[in-house]
């Protein structure tokens, strides 16, 4: 154990093709976290592979939004998403229409509650109190409680069968770094799912990432897929 060279490091992280990685997702009715905010940090290449595997359907998606033009939206347009949990679906007109026609269920959560529920879901904390949404419609039906004369809402943490996330670089042990605001929900979702599949732009040797700057240690990672850009 003690003095190990980079080429001796073996972890449980697997390096697979997108197809092989997506083959690990339960076929029907999986809960699936998908990283990204706006256009930034969406695992588009992995989502393409999900689209290519028809039996992955009846999905419950946890994603801040469903960005128009993204492959997550394509998956929705294929009627493969039965429910979406996130903070902002307003700008996607097709989602609005589907919701009105009863074709998709939406659970709206304030964005800060969503992000903390992800992080705590991955941290073994099942529930927490937040001031956010206290006294609003989004707190209706939820338990509330006063601490120091302020009202707080009991929120439950999130976990999922799968997280599809997007990172910038992985080393061959599975440690991850992100790029600028493409980080967003990705490191949190990595912590919160039973199976974390990561799309990366580059895979580097063990030892090439600064140990002080690794954002997601490999303990939270199961599978890494290098994005292949079509020529």
């Amino acid at each position, binding site marked *: 154990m003690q003095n190990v060279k980079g080429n001796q490091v073996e972890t449980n992280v697997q390096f697979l093709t997108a197809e092989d990685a997506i083959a690990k997702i339960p076929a029907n009715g999986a809960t699936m976290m998908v990283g990204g905010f706006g256009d930034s940090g969406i695992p588009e290449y992995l989502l393409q592979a999900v689209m290519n595997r028809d039996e992955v359907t009846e999905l419950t998606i946890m994603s801040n939004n469903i960005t128009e033009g993204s492959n997550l939206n394509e998956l929705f347009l294929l009627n493969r998403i039965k429910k979406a949990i996130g903070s902002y679906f307003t700008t996607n007109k097709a989602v609005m229409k589907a919701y009105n026609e009863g074709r998709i269920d939406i659970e709206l959560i304030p964005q800060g509650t969503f992000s903390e529920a992800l992080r705590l879901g991955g941290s073994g904390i099942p529930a927490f109190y937040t001031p956010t949404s206290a006294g609003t*419609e989004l707190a209706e039906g939820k338990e509330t409680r006063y601490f120091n004369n302020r009202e707080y809402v009991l929120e439950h943490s999130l976990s999922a069968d799968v997280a599809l996330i997007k990172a910038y670089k992985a080393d061959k042990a599975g440690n991850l770094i992100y790029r600028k605001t493409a980080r967003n929900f990705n490191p949190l979702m990595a912590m919160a799912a039973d199976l974390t599949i990561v799309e990366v732009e580059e895979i580097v040797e063990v030892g090439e990432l600064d140990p002080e700057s690794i954002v997601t240690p490999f303990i939270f990672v199961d599978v890494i897929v290098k994005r292949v850009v079509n020529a």
Partner: protein
Amino acid sequence: MKLESIRHYIAWRAAQELKKGIVNLGIGIPTLVADYLTPGKVTLHSENGILGVGAAPAEGFADRDLINAGKQPITQLPHTSFFDSSLSFAMMRGGHLDATVIGALQVAENGDIASWAIPGKDVLGVGGVMDLVAGAKKVIVTTTHLNAKGEPKILSRCTYPLTAKGRVDTVITEYAVFKIRSGQLYLEEIVAGISLDELKQITPASYEVSANLQRVNAFDLVK
């Protein structure tokens, strides 16, 4: 004033409240506030995970991985840091932001704010505004005094779904600046060209006129 001038005046006026510190700007009029801040004094935070939001990039230099919460391309500054959404909202909800400037559909005399949903319309988005209003040390609302239908927005009680209860500190419109102190709404500033009575008629909220009421000329103020 034309609507665009009005929006810029309100943004400029909000910027006068922000001399130093860390601020999160919402979408709409608040976005315009950035143009009126003294360079280097105020640092902008965006909830998607950046402290130190720089200007829009030059044409052709947009980076898909560098956006603000309004999904617009931005640039980074020398003191910029990046972090995940959880830490970003810890900053907001934990009371670390000096101020936020946000828009509103309605504001009430008790500091309640409604900004995310209209009754009878589908509401499938809330974003980060509830966390922002729940946590920022100072909540500044920038809004036109009346909505597009000509209805007042500063009311006794909000009739639209609330964003948060009792969290608003300051309301800035094209006609006036109101502040809430100890649960009481005060008129602090009124622009030239509108009388106190005229303001009252378009402001159903009950408010006191501040002992230090300022009368300002909006047209002169905007550069």
